[in-house]
């Protein structure tokens, strides 16, 4: 094929096709347009203020590495006046996090940013290796996910920083939209797409400046700028379960590459249509605390597991059976149906936000999940195996579905 000229400069050889609009761009124009778009997102949402101290949640993976590189570039180019630093969480998984932390350490030198590494052992008294030793490999993702959600906030608080940025990209946001639709989770549907999430409890603002950036473009940006990032899967979930939503989104991207941003757009619009009474208690949402993980664990981030789906199916079947015991829908004579409510329109559950009695972290329960898990771990220290007590994993069906979902990927081996 004859080389294609760049759509923007019309001169250099095009090397990338943008998923968003199919424009073919050369390396230089692509890097420029990618950075400019992130800048526009930042300006359009008033994301930062001059002099703000911002911690970049850094895992050494592509997303957070690109985020650090772009923020450094933009901060200098447009004089944001930000005081940037890197904040990493060490789950304590030997052979996995060790290597990626080495990457983060190099990044700190490359980008001239201070780096803080906060370990699970420091925060919780347990490394993931120790957790796995105690609970086994099954279900350990639950611990890691719950611990990770809190770790960044706690780390930032320790540094006296009030704003943490994470590398969540458009694919992640799209996945979350689809997930929440599949889960029927309206409160999260109303929050999942917003660029900033904050929680009263920790007073720490979380944001995702790469919210509109395609995962594919992030990888290409890293490649063309030869960024130093780490690619691997967690050793504890080598064939990480890729949930329904993710598979679906990757299929959609093949059919119509723009669809990832189209889902983000739909998600933003639908968020505005979620009835106010189910959105959650204003600013004091759990969004920042319980919905995002720091930098994307391959198996848990924004995805459902087979167990979760099976558990939900069971719940829905029970609800259905209960519903059929209800009497026929009665309408007061002459009453008009409320616009846009199904005749069976049921009250939607609301969430109340409290603080964990142990650690004061925001939680929908009296004791937050992390403290509950820790309780279990500490009680059984050193060796007794315990059940994963958060009521979301049905191991049998989880592994069955996992096998089913992985079949496509494994069949070729």
């Amino acid at each position, binding site marked *: *094929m004859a080389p294609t000229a760049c759509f923007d400069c019309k001169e250099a050889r095009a090397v990338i096709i943008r998923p968003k609009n199919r424009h073919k761009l050369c390396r230089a124009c692509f890097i420029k347009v990618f950075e400019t778009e992130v800048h526009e997102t930042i300006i359009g949402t008033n994301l930062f203020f001059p002099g703000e101290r911002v911690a970049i949640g850094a895992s050494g993976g592509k997303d*957070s590495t690109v985020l650090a590189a772009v923020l450094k570039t933009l901060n200098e180019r447009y004089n944001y006046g930000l005081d940037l630093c890197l904040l990493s969480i060490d789950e304590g998984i030997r052979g996995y996090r060790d290597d990626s932390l080495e990457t983060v350490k190099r990044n700190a030198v490359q980008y001239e940013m201070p780096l803080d590494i906060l370990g699970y052992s420091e925060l919780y008294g347990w490394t993931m290796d120790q957790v796995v030793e105690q609970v086994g490999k099954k279900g350990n993702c639950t611990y890691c996910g719950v611990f990770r959600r809190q770790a960044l906030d706690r780390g930032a608080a320790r540094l006296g920083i009030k704003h943490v940025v994470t590398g969540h990209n458009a694919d992640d946001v799209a996945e979350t939209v689809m997930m929440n639709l599949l889960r029927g989770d309206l409160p999260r549907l109303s929050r999942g797409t917003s660029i900033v999430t904050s929680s009263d409890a920790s007073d720490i603002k979380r944001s995702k400046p790469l919210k509109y950036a395609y995962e594919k473009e992030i990888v*290409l940006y890293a490649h063309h700028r030869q960024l130093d990032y*780490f*690619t691997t*899967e967690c050793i504890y979930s080598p064939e990480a379960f890729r949930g329904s939503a993710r598979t679906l989104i990757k299929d959609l991207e*093949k059919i119509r590459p723009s669809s990832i941003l189209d889902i983000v757009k739909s998600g933003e619009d639908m968020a505005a249509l979620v009835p106010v009474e189910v959105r959650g208690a204003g600013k004091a949402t759990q969004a920042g605390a319980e919905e995002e993980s720091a930098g994307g*664990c391959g198996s848990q981030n924004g995805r459902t597991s087979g167990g979760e789906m099976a558990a939900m199916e069971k719940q829905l079947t029970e609800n259905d059976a209960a519903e059929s015991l209800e009497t026929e829908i009665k309408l007061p004579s002459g009453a008009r149906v409320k616009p846009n409510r199904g005749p069976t329109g049921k009250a939607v559950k609301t969430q109340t936000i409290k603080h964990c009695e142990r650690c004061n972290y925001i939680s929908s329960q009296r004791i937050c999940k992390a403290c509950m898990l820790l309780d279990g771990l500490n009680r059984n220290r050193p060796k007794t195996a315990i059940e994963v007590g958060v009521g979301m994993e049905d191991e049998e069906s989880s592994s069955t579905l996992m096998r089913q979902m992985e079949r496509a990927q494994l069949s070729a081996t």
Partner: protein
Amino acid sequence: MYLDSGGLELLFGNERKHKVVLPARLEDGSRPNISYLLKYLVDNLMKDQRIDMFIMEDNVYVNVTLRVYSNSINDVDRRPGILVLINDADWELEGEETYELQQGDNIVFVSTLHGG
């Protein structure tokens, strides 16, 4: 989780670079293309985890960089989440699997999936 590099150099991070030698003409007279390379990678890298280093005349040398998980290379055209770059260009710009390999081409397979 990575392909054994077969004693080849390790670049920064965890890239795996391979020098792959392919016949200039295949049995049916056609020239090796990306499809052929994929099959070759699966047959040779996956099974023996070693690279055939015989060098003969009339061969095509290509540099292959892998930043993918071990299972994913099997299924590159059907499985989402892997980018193929031919001399730094998206393979869509070069005719995807039909692209005929040239001497010294750089082929990169990059995973776009999470792993951090």
